[in-house]
């Protein structure tokens, strides 16, 4: 696993939405980095802010209603959040590729897929029509669509879900981006198709060596392909570790509960599934206490007073919890990670 300088460095990203009923604090001080060639998995339940975080990075959120309160996103030495639209547009699709969850609706139904793949090529790489076409064929072949040249002229509805998702990936890869952000790219697909896509991504990563952020709520997917994992809860990163470390030694009660609730096809069959009772937090204000405390069995007075910072709990492993699982006691005065 190549471990070099980060291509993307996110610090203290905070995004809120202005809605009719008030503000929604969707992302609260998220910090992480992404290194060249690695695959960073992001998990968390629905509404935990995974998508908003990633879309904030490259200005894909409509403003208003969204507002990026503060934070920096350093990419190639520049802060994306302070870049003008034109600059962002030059980066989007060229340096940073995006794959979205639903392949059924993410492609424009009225343009042939060839056109949709060629668009970024012509804009960013200034290819002419022919070159763009040739490159599109190449890309389709790369993502494993048979008979690629002929299918360029087909429309999205003529492709199956899995193939459409491959087309989406081809579009994201078109300009050889440094970073690929995949927002739940396989959630809408069947397991066998998902397996195909996962295999494809593994393959491509080896071939192209780009950095990937992979958002999902399926721990199994993460276990299969990620190098590092971030767990998000209530708009924050509550735990972050290398993948094996995370599964072996989860150090946040939420992560631990999450790992417990998921039954396995092969492991031991529990007589009863464990559940995480309660509701996800309502993000109407900036958190001033631990967002998980209402559902947490380890809760104690500190949890209500302060939002726990991310404590280092091991090499490359941090967790935002006042409970020290190694000591099985509340954490003393330990230096916060961030």
């Amino acid at each position: 696993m190549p471990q070099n300088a980060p291509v993307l460095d996110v610090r203290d990203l905070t995004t809120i939405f202005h809605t009719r009923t008030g503000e929604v604090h969707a992302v609260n001080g998220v910090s992480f980095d992404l290194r060249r060639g690695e695959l960073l998995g992001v998990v968390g339940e629905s509404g935990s802010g995974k998508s908003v975080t990633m879309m904030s990075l490259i200005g894909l959120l409509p403003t208003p209603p969204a507002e990026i309160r503060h934070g920096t996103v350093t990419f190639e030495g520049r802060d994306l959040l302070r870049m003008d639209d034109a600059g962002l547009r030059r980066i989007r699709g060229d340096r940073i590729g995006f794959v979205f969850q639903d392949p059924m609706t993410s492609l424009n139904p009225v343009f042939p897929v060839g056109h949709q793949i060629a668009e970024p090529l012509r804009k960013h790489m200034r290819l002419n029509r022919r070159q763009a076409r040739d490159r599109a064929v190449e890309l389709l072949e790369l993502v494993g669509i048979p008979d690629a040249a002929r299918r360029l002229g087909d429309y999205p509805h003529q492709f199956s879900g899995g193939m459409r998702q491959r087309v989406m990936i081809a579009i994201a890869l078109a300009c050889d981006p440094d970073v690929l952000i995949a927002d739940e790219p396989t959630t809408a697909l069947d397991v066998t198709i998902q397996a195909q896509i996962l295999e494809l991504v593994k393959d491509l990563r080896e071939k192209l060596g780009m950095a990937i952020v992979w958002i999902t709520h399926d721990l199994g997917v993460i276990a299969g392909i990620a190098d590092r994992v971030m767990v998000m809860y209530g708009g924050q990163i509550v735990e972050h570790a290398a993948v094996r470390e995370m599964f072996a030694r989860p150090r946040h009660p939420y992560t631990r509960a999450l790992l417990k609730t998921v039954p396995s096809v092969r492991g031991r069959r529990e007589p009863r599934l464990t559940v995480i009772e309660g509701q996800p937090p309502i993000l109407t204000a900036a958190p001033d206490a631990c967002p998980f405390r209402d559902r947490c069995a380890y809760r104690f007075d500190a949890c209500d007073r302060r939002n726990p910072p991310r404590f280092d709990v091991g090499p490359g492993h941090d967790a935002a919890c006042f409970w020290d699982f190694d000591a099985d006691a509340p954490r003393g005065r330990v230096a916060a990670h961030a």
Partner: protein
Amino acid sequence: MLTFALRRILISIPTLLVISLAIFLLLELAPGDPMSQVPLTVPDEVKQRMREALGMGEPIPVRYGKWLLQFFWVEPLNLIDHWFGTTFAAGEQRILSWQTRSPVMEIVAQRMPQTLWVVGMSYVVGVLIALPIGIYSAYRQYSVFDQAGTFVSMIGYSVPPFFSGVLVIVIFSIQLQWFPSVYDTTHVVDSWDSFVVQLRQMIMPVMVLALQTTAQISRFMRASMLDNLGQDYVRTARAKGMSEAVVVLRHVLRNSMIPVVTVIALGVPGIFGGAIITEQVFKVNGIGQLLITAIQGADLPMVQTLTFIFAVLIVGFNLLADILYGLLDPRIRYD
């Protein structure tokens, strides 16, 4: 796609037949009498003979059949004769107006140019204005422009043309003396100057009618744009680094136009008959005015024919709209 189109065409045939029957029967019920113009002093038996001469004595099915034959066979033949100088239709009984006793179709043909010039042009103008307004209103939803656009288009929708028409006449013809208040249907455009004259006499009716068209089409356009602006593929396009202009004017617009184009096509038949009031106000004696005088004069063959022409147009443009929809939307095209 081809079977789809064919199927639609096949369906429209019985539809047209039923419509023609409905129109025919409805009008047969009318108390209209070709003799209503004939003075009271003419004796009854003479009137009776005159009625029979017009084919009124025969039973309804026979007359319906004859009318259909005339409409679908004799009149088209006449048209061919007219174009190519042939004589296929010589001697065939044509549909005659009771009022003028001349072939209905000839009068219709006479009225067509002004209707097309004025009402057709207003439709084109209206649509051309409406589209950008709709697009921009949707793109800047709830902006001042959008609110103003909404307000103006609703006003446009709610002001009856007999009022707005007279208003513009008073302003532009009487006060400012810019444009003529009476449309000259005999005006022939054959030079630049005469074209300017034509433009000047068209401007006011076109303005009044276009206001309504604009009001409606811009609403449709806005709604359709709004629908599409929220779609996932828009986000994809942005994520590819496309500029806003490309995102909105290529990706979103193309999709939004699909329903709008069909709405536009469906509005076309209205051109031929829907502008009755505006025609009246500006003295553009077009198809609408023809219909209203025919109704007032109890000229049943004229009313029947016009109504049925409208029906044919509506069915035809419905068909066109369906087919356009198919052509524009690949999901249907390849069905």
